[in-house]
């Protein structure tokens, strides 16, 4: 079996897909911990949709889809983070509007684009086996850059998210730390969305951190578990997709979401005891 896996990952396209999945998935699983703790999970669902809209606009105008993913993701984050509450509509309402608009307009634009079927596949189920060297390098670069930024400024990210008012009182630029977190998220989504689709992006953002938060009550353990679950899901999902001829993105997303169930069962047993 080891030999077969070795042979499988001997192909360059599989190596690229694995690197995108492992680094992009691990990064989104890491950032997803903050998405859960800040109670903005719905934002995590809307952002891949907005990123998809960016890709569909790029495809419509025959531009590089990757550029669309980056611009769409970052613009969506800036729009949703700093728009306030115009008309006193709760912020969740605006996130919902962005989710629905992103998805529906993306499909409309794709139907008008030169190659609608390939575009739709790319956006929602992903085409991770189409990842190339530059996709892989981008995913590695964003993951390592984000890791380094958080390593250097860990307490600032933590404190500004945990209690923004107190942080502002102490002179921390909360909006700057929020913007940096969301920018990392935007770039991370772009790295994954362009090849692996919105399903995988949202699955990685939600599944591994949810399981980690249920299992552990210490920050280092939660982060480590989320990243391990995210990267393992990428490897297992990609391997399964190759073996059983499954679509790569959904297979990895399923693997990312699977640990939630045993974690929930474990919590129920722990609480019962």
């Amino acid at each position, binding site marked *: 079996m080891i030999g077969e896996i070795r042979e499988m990952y001997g192909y360059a396209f599989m190596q690229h897909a694995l690197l995108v999945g492992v680094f992009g998935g691990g990064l989104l699983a890491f950032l997803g911990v903050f998405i859960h703790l800040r*109670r903005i999970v719905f934002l995590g669902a809307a952002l891949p949709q907005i990123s998809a809209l960016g890709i569909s606009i790029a495809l419509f105008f025959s531009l590089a889809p990757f550029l669309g993913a980056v611009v769409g993701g970052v613009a969506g984050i800036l729009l949703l983070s700093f728009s306030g509450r115009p008309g006193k509509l709760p912020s969740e309402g605006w996130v919902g509007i962005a989710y629905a608009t992103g998805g529906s307009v993306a499909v409309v634009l794709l139907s008008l684009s030169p190659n609608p079927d390939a575009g739709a596949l790319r956006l929602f189920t992903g085409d991770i086996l189409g990842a190339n060297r530059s996709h892989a390098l981008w995913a590695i670069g964003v993951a390592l850059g984000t890791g380094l930024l958080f390593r250097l400024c860990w*307490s600032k990210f*933590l404190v*500004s998210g*945990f*209690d923004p*008012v*107190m942080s502002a*009182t102490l002179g921390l630029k909360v909006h700057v730390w929020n913007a940096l977190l969301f920018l990392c998220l935007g770039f991370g989504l772009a790295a994954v969305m362009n090849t692996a689709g919105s399903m995988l992006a949202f699955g990685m953002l939600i599944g591994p951190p949810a399981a980690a938060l249920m299992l552990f*009550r210490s920050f280092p353990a939660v982060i480590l578990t989320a990243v391990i679950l995210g990267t393992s899901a990428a490897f297992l999902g990609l391997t399964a997709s190759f073996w059983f001829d499954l679509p790569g993105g959904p297979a990895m997303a399923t693997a990312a979401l699977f640990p939630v169930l045993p974690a929930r069962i474990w919590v129920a047993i722990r609480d019962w005891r």
Partner: protein
Amino acid sequence: MSMPLLTLEHVTLGYPGKALLKNLDFAVSRGEFFGIVGPNGAGKSTLLKTLLGLLPPLAGHLHWPEGRPVIGYVPQRERVDPIWPMRVRDVLHHTLCALGRPHFRRKREHASVAEVMAATGIEALANQTLDTLSGGEMQRLLLARALVVDPAVLVLDEPTAAMDLVATETFMNMISRLHRERGISILLVTHDLQSLSGRADRLGILQSGQLHQGSPEDLLTSESLGRIYGQKIQVDTLRGRSFIHIAHETVSGFERIGAGGT
């Protein structure tokens, strides 16, 4: 009291198009314990946000004569989300680290954290996570977090809201002790006028857009409170503490001011 730590001159507070408090004038001296009391909607939170520098005044001048000091802010405990997987010790440690002060070397950092945990009586909780703390313990952690940055002034936002009587007394006694022993200036906003009695150096009562200021001895009388609140109020004094009751027109007897707002 020494020179003013903070002065407000003809300050109007609120949001664009909606002034909540107009022409406020008051000063807080270094080392003073200033208690601000008011019902819901009186503008307490708006005043607090302005003092913390989070909301600029609509008009007038807010001035820190010696420069803005380090402010230790103690929010209501409901403002802090216990789902964050942090231990008590981590909250204090990261607060210090987030400030990024180069002189806070590791050893000194540990000493600061240990010292504030001892001062607030939470040493035994050091390794407990937030979701395991009671309301009173969480509030003491928030006090410790405010103290760990070595503040010149402590600003507390209804710290005893939803606390039982014993926890309220314990917490308020701790604040009094910190004020007495460390000389920290205290600005405490609360519903509960009675909890400030015998503790605050000076009081401000927000009522109908006005801030009525004075010493507790002057303000905590039946006449003064009756005039401010426009109701018949009874004040009993026992061992230096005032016990305040408001006459209820439909129910016989008296109610304590502040149980749920006046």
